[in-house]
């Protein structure tokens, strides 16, 4: 079955991203397909490579990046939500005249249409948030 996953909260502050990660792993382990993981609202903050979590805790961004690499996941950060919160890739930084970017490996920035599309092309859409 095809699952779309939506993450509405940032890393560490809420458990949403952790739960979404565990759900995604469990779905993959059962042979299901993950059409897309869409990061919306504060969820875009999962996609910054600048986090330095304590050494004795999980690294949420790395978890997503590695799971994405292993299973060729489409990790999409919503552009409108990302702009409000300061998540940029190199192109966006250039376009907005910003002197740095912070997107993490394996994430891409795209529009809200990708969320609707995930709803259309997935058999189930599962949202994690606050």
């Amino acid at each position, binding site marked *: 079955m095809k699952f779309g996953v*939506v993450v*509405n909260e940032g890393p560490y502050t809420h458990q949403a991203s952790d739960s979404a990660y565990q759900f995604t792993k469990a779905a993959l382990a059962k042979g299901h397909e993950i059409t897309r993981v869409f990061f*919306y*609202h504060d969820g875009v903050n999962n996609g910054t490579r600048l986090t330095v979590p304590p050494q004795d805790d999980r690294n949420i961004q790395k978890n997503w990046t590695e799971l994405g690499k292993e299973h060729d996941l489409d990790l999409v950060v919503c552009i*409108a*939500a990302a702009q409000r919160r300061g998540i940029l890739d190199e192109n966006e930084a250039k376009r907005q005249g910003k002197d740095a970017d912070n997107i993490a490996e394996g994430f891409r920035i795209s*529009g*809200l*249409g990708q*969320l*609707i*599309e995930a*709803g*259309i092309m997935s058999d189930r*859409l599962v*949202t994690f*948030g606050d």
Partner: protein
Amino acid sequence: MQEETIKKFMYMNRKAPYGTIYALEALEVVLIGAAFDQDVSLAFLDDGVFQLVEGQDTDGIGVKNFSPAFRALGDYDVTKLFVEKESLEERGLSPDDLMELVWEDEDDDWAEKPSIRIVTRDELKSILGDQDVILSF
């Protein structure tokens, strides 16, 4: 590309505006989603009914007033806004406290029709049970 079946999309609105951004960003999804020609409904229940209250004026808090965007929904063919009666009542509100939102029915000589439909909790329960995709904010 093969023809897609039309899915029933439900946007769940259970949070008040301004205290958090969810209501505003939900509206942004609805407006973008309107381009996808799906069968779109919005549910307003619990504190979500506060999003539709008429006369919002945010000058004093320095935050953007996004409530006028609800008026655009009709132009985007988003015409089914289900508002739960019990949620209104528990909050001391009546349907008269809500914005007047309309759409023009092209099958009925472009007659203006109300987009807000007051439904009971039991009616909303049935409507929710009938959806293909439920987006929560």
